[in-house]
């Protein structure tokens, strides 16, 4: 039965993937903090919630503000760190994800900025903004949010 051939191919592929997954290395400690506007009431987020926000799948905060994610420039180390630890994809894979979203959903990727100063200014100015910045460079103009499960 030809269908069984397809099932065999699928199962073989799945088995290869399962074997590949056993060698996944442990993630090192993250060097960034999640930040939001000071008036945002949220204090704790989970990784899946962050994923949905930075993929523009969650649009509104509980207080009714639009979620406005801000990313770092694609070449920055903090972006790579965030992409691997939170989004579980490389920066390159996320760029491909946004091509897919642009075509199928009409969504555009988050705004990108190139410095901590710019990120902080943006988050401090936009009530629904959410971003991340190097842990030691976050000041009191924004609010830090803890992330459950982030190493």
């Amino acid at each position, binding site marked *: 039965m030809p269908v069984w051939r397809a099932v065999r*191919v699928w199962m073989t592929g799945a088995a290869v993937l399962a074997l590949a997954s056993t060698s996944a290395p442990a993630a090192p400690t993250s060097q960034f903090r999640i930040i939001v506007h000071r008036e945002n009431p949220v204090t704790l987020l989970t990784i899946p919630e962050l994923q949905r926000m930075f993929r523009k799948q969650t649009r509104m905060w509980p207080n009714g503000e639009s979620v406005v994610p801000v990313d770092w420039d694609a070449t920055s180390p903090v972006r790579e760190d965030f992409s691997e630890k939170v989004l579980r994809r490389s920066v390159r894979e996320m760029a491909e994800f946004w*091509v897919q979203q642009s075509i199928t959903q009409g969504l555009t990727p988050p705004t990108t900025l190139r410095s901590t*100063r710019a990120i902080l200014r943006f988050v401090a100015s936009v009530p629904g903004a959410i971003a991340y910045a190097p842990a030691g460079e976050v000041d009191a103009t924004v609010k830090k949010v803890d992330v459950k499960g982030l190493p």
Partner: protein
Amino acid sequence: MTCRFRLVGVVVALMATPAWAQQDDVARLRAELQRQQVVIAELLQRLDQLEKKQAGAATRDEVTQEAETQQEVVNSLRESLLGRVNLGGYYNFRFAADSSETPVSFQQHHLGLLLSKQLRRFNFHMELELQNVPHHPELRAESGDEAPHLEEEAGEASDISGEGQVAVENAWMEYNHNRFLNVRVGKQLAPQYWWQNHYPNLTLSTDQPIYLRELFPPELIGVMAHGNVTRASGESEFGIGYKLYLSNNQFEGNSQRDLRDAKSWGGRVQVKLPTGGALKRFDMAADLYRGRIALVTQELVDDHVYGVESQVEIDRFQVQGEYARGRTLGQTRYGYYVQPAVRMRDDWLAFYRVEQLDSPRIHRAEVRHLGGVNFRPYPQIAVKAEFYRAVPQARPFVEHDERPYRGFAAAAVFFF
């Protein structure tokens, strides 16, 4: 010698300064020193001021970044308050050559223009598509076969009409109430994975699976409700999503009869399984469609289709597959594809696909194998090449003995 000493003595005596004159000089020097000290103090003060000014002043890069930040803030507010129209598109050029009756051809396969806008909870999305694929009606005439399978052998040649027509492939607006309920109305793609992601930038092969158009309808004009429920499970989440739709039947041009007739409906349940952080993706879905389908005689008959699909992704590996089975006028047709792929490097991917179609409705039974590579120097650009081998299957409903054939296809794709 004595005279010389006397002369020097006189000169020294003339040059010598009296004590009262020396005291005046010291006083002048002291005054000058005090003036210099005041000047130095002033200079130090100015230096401090300059240093402070310099510390406060920005470099050119910082000023540029600051301007960009403020522009982004304005854009963001504008996007939130007024919405912003996003314009994009894609371009696909394809070459195909094989040993079947389909001629070697260059195909200006797709030129799509995408236009979308978000306004808080509302979305609008539209896609205009131009296709210009060589059309060869003489092949059908020569074969004397009314079934459209030769046309379909040309891959997507039957997508729209082929000869440079522009069509609206998508035009819908959506209201996002919350995660559990969203409503989309208009012309939209069918909810199955391949149809949702059939764009040339998103597929690894240059051609669609052969069974695709013969089972689920590719698009629908109607109303769709969709949503999902998720629960965090460690670093990933477990989710269940649904899609329910009511639409016109699949009939060329939506004739009066179709519009008078009962509507088609369908549903989909998709499960997002927890990945535990090891997998990147583990999705499964089941689909059901009940509607009417047009025969070659332009009659509408009942059509029931169901299907299952899955996508798994771990590290550099991914496997995706879909299976669908339909029943019309007591005849069963089915098709599937399974496609494992590996990302060899950031910009290189390789894939293999096995697929089959068995359809008494269009008198076609075929298994096809494809293997190929993608070079993607940028996420927006893809250069694809693939070999394929198609093996017609012997079935009672296949009247002509058709021979296996093999071919080569390549495509260049640009998303903008």
